[in-house]
């Protein structure tokens, strides 16, 4: 991948120019789907865009010193990491990529969550600290399953290159991994039943409590970009291999949309779990599947 294609992927498709409207669209789809399932009409189509513009026009409280600077930096790091993760997705066939880009994608997907933890602690608000502690506990529980699932997929296909993973024929083991990733997504995107870090009416807004104006707009945007990147990862792993570029892009967008709908249905149908129940869920119930997936992947690799 040379510099031009890398820049084009980061800035145009599937990078910023595509990802930012897609982030707003997915945020709207989630809110609208939840509203429809609750028998409401829900927000208008442009709502996340209006929210974003309005937040850009609001004033921010003055912050001084190192912690003030850090508080301004975290949302920007989160947005750039999420945008970079979207840019790495191999949407178009033969779009390049390099050996090990799956590892970079996982790191970039994890950065927004680390930024949220750091932001909550640097805001020095008691609610922010509780939210950050919850986010950290949540991250430690779902990431084990998430990473084991991805490693099992990569090990069964003998590659850490995203495009090669998307192109290879799928096996039952592959689908087990995709299901394990899907189970982790509600926790990664902080939606019900794992909306613990930003638990509204419980700890105010968690790590975001002290944020206002353009900084909050950046957090909303990074949340939307996380939606695009996480659903895009599932779409990449689940999509059939296609050579026509427009069909591949269409299938990618359609699959991402289906994943958003599925997650919204889960969010609308469930209530928030307590932190100990959540940690137990990931460590006791889903870890078994992840260990099964990775051990059978390694077993098959040794046999072949």
């Amino acid at each position, binding site marked *: 991948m040379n510099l031009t294609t890398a820049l084009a992927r980061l800035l145009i498709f599937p990078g910023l120019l595509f990802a930012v409207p897609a982030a707003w669209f997915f945020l709207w789809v989630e809110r609208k789907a939840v509203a429809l399932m*609750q028998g409401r009409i829900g927000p*208008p189509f442009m709502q996340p865009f209006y929210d974003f513009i309005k937040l850009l026009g609001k004033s921010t409280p003055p912050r001084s010193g190192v912690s003030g600077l850090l508080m301004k930096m975290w949302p920007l790091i989160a947005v750039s990491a999420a945008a970079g993760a979207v840019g790495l997705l191999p949407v178009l066939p033969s779009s390049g990529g390099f050996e090990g880009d799956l590892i970079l994608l996982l790191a970039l997907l994890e950065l927004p969550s680390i930024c949220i933890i750091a932001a909550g602690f640097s805001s020095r608000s008691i*609610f922010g600290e509780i939210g950050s502690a919850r986010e950290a506990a949540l991250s430690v529980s779902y990431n084990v399953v998430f990473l084991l699932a991805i490693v099992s997929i990569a090990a069964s296909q003998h590659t850490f290159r995203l495009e090669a993973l998307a192109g290879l024929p799928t096996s039952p083991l592959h689908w087990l991994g995709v299901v394990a990733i899907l189970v982790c997504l509600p926790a990664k995107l902080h939606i019900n039943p794992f909306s613990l870090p930003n638990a509204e009416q419980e700890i105010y807004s968690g790590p975001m409590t002290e944020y206002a104006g353009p900084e909050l707009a950046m957090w909303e945007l990074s949340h939307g970009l996380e939606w695009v990147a996480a659903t895009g990862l599932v779409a990449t792993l689940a999509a059939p291999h296609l050579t026509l570029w427009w069909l591949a892009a269409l299938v990618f967008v359609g699959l991402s949309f289906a994943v958003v709908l599925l997650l919204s249905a889960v969010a609308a149908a469930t209530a928030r779990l307590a932190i100990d129940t959540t940690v137990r869920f990931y460590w006791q119930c889903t870890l078994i599947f992840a260990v099964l997936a990775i051990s059978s992947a390694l077993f098959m690799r040794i046999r072949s």
Partner: protein
Amino acid sequence: MNLWNRLMCYSRRRSPWLFHMNGGSCNGCDIELIASLTPRYDAEQLGVRLEGSPRHADILCITGPITHNAVNPIKTVYDQVCGPKAVVAIGSCPATTNVFIDSRTLAGPLNLHIPVDVFVPGCPPRPDAIIQGVAKAAEILAERAAKKLPVEPVVMPLVGPGCGGACGCTAADKSGAKEAQP
């Protein structure tokens, strides 16, 4: 006004985020504010979102007759709401202290302490009246931010049964509203 300012004004009108605060209310108005977000009234159609932190909010919704203990927290929260902002006084209590008038535990109506933009009368007001008040407050907020003009407080008309046609409703609307009562 250039394009960006017009877009900003439009977005402010379409995206009012609320922060709800109780100033010694009996909980009647608080329940009605929550009811305006439920499937029957669905304020989210107007972009309304109930926020957990005053820093995120545009509109401060205050209920209750403002007790002595509530004055300082209300002033603090008002300062924490980032501008441009608006205040909606929900119910008759923050406007006039209602039936609690002359009580020695009260620090008087809300507009003695912070500037109020919209009064929504009623004991308690109906959820549709609250939604109307919030929409009006969002309009005031957007206009004030665009033109930098002080805007006089607005008293919303009573809505629903007993309004005497003040809200411009017809007899058919009122019979429908009566049927809606359990």
